[in-house]
């Protein structure tokens, strides 16, 4: 099986927001709506303050709470793990928005919207025999645009994939794992011991 995922290397991200801009350009999201954001997180207290930039967005969870609560079945999960929204079914009730622990959704023109992992690029690329995560034409816009090579995209179920290699060579965590949603954005924070 294929399970598309993003790996974000927190050691490399410089918070330039180029991924945010690339996402907006690629997906035409309206002002104020950002499917890909980069958080600027400060932790600790003076003088032991640390700062990290954390790219966030839809985590395309293995067990997406948004899908389970959706009354219209507009939110679905594809076999390759990508969580999609059918804009023709969505009633804009907002239930998915309060169910998502990652604040990843926004209402646009009365329906819920969110990051799609640039599913159109992936599907079109695969149809051409390209490899998402390797060939830019088949890779999400945010990953392509990253100036620091902090973002990587690939198949988490393929042990030979680019991101499986990164996950094996480094220590990582996922956001709010305790909620058991199985998010598919992995954050690298250090080399493997």
């Amino acid at each position, binding site marked *: 099986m294929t399970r598309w995922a993003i790996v974000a*290397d*927190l*050691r490399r991200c410089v918070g330039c927001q180029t991924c945010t801009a690339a996402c907006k350009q690629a997906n035409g999201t309206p002002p104020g709506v950002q499917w890909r954001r980069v*958080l600027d*997180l400060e*932790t600790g207290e003076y003088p032991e303050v*640390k700062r*990290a930039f*954390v790219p*966030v967005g839809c985590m395309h969870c293995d067990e997406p*709470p948004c*899908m*389970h*609560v*959706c*009354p*219209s*079945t*507009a939110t679905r999960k594809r076999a390759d793990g990508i969580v999609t929204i059918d804009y023709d*079914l*969505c*009633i*804009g*009730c*907002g*239930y998915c*928005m*309060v*169910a*998502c*622990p*990652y*604040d990843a959704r926004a*209402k646009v*023109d*009365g*329906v*819920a919207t969110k990051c799609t992992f640039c599913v159109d690029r992936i599907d079109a690329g695969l149809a051409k025999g390209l490899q998402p995560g390797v060939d830019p034409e088949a890779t999400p816009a945010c990953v392509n645009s990253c100036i620091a090579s902090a973002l990587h995209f690939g198949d988490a179920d393929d042990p030979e994939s680019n991101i499986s290699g990164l996950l094996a060579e480094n*220590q990582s*965590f996922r*956001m*709010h794992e305790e*909620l058991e*949603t199985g998010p598919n954005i992995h*954050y*690298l*924070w*250090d*080399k493997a011991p």
Partner: protein
Amino acid sequence: MTSLQRYWDARAALNFILGGSGSGLIIAAAFVQPPNPWPVAAGLALIAAGLLAVWLETGRKLRALHVLFNPFTSWMTREAFAALLLFPVGLGAFLTLKFLPVAAVLALAFLWCQARILRAAHGIPAWRAPQVVPLVIAAGLAEGAGFAVLLVQTQLAAALLAIVLIGRMLAWSAYRAEVTSEALERAGKALQLGALGALLLVAASFYVAQAALLAAALAVGTGWWLKFSLVTRAASTQGFSLPRQPVRGTR
């Protein structure tokens, strides 16, 4: 790094407020002696008003029937189905009281679905706590019993109000032990003090009948305030956290 959710506002809160009270009133009607059809009618009207309010919040109103598409996992769909069954059966109960027990069961199902809607919202810690289910149910029952007292003014209805108020106090205590929310402090205190006051007034109503009306108003008002606060003011998002700091450079 949390923020208050802005997706569900007072219109969604009204569904929980009016729907909870309406379903509680239909349940209370099944216990009121002599049986009276008017609490059932009032309960259905309250539920309808709540559903109308939440419908006004949807982004695509003409697609309202799509709410019925996911009974397998969505409590919102299940709530809609419970309402679809409750309205004809409730109308039947209004016309002939032999349907009242069935209507009461369906009203309980509706109330249960409302409570589970909040429980399933994983993004809001104040809602996803398991204790929110008994709290919302107890609040709906107490408000319904309060309305029953206002409508039929019998000692039995007042006694029923006292029982469910004790249940609501226990449910709030259990919820409060699990969820800490500054936004709920005032409404929570009002809920408990209001319940205590209402219990005293119910006791007094055995001597001065009108005291039961004040008890009912207290029970309803404090319950509504709590639910409004729970939906619109205590609904902070999960936010983000950084369990590990990136290790950069040499160590």
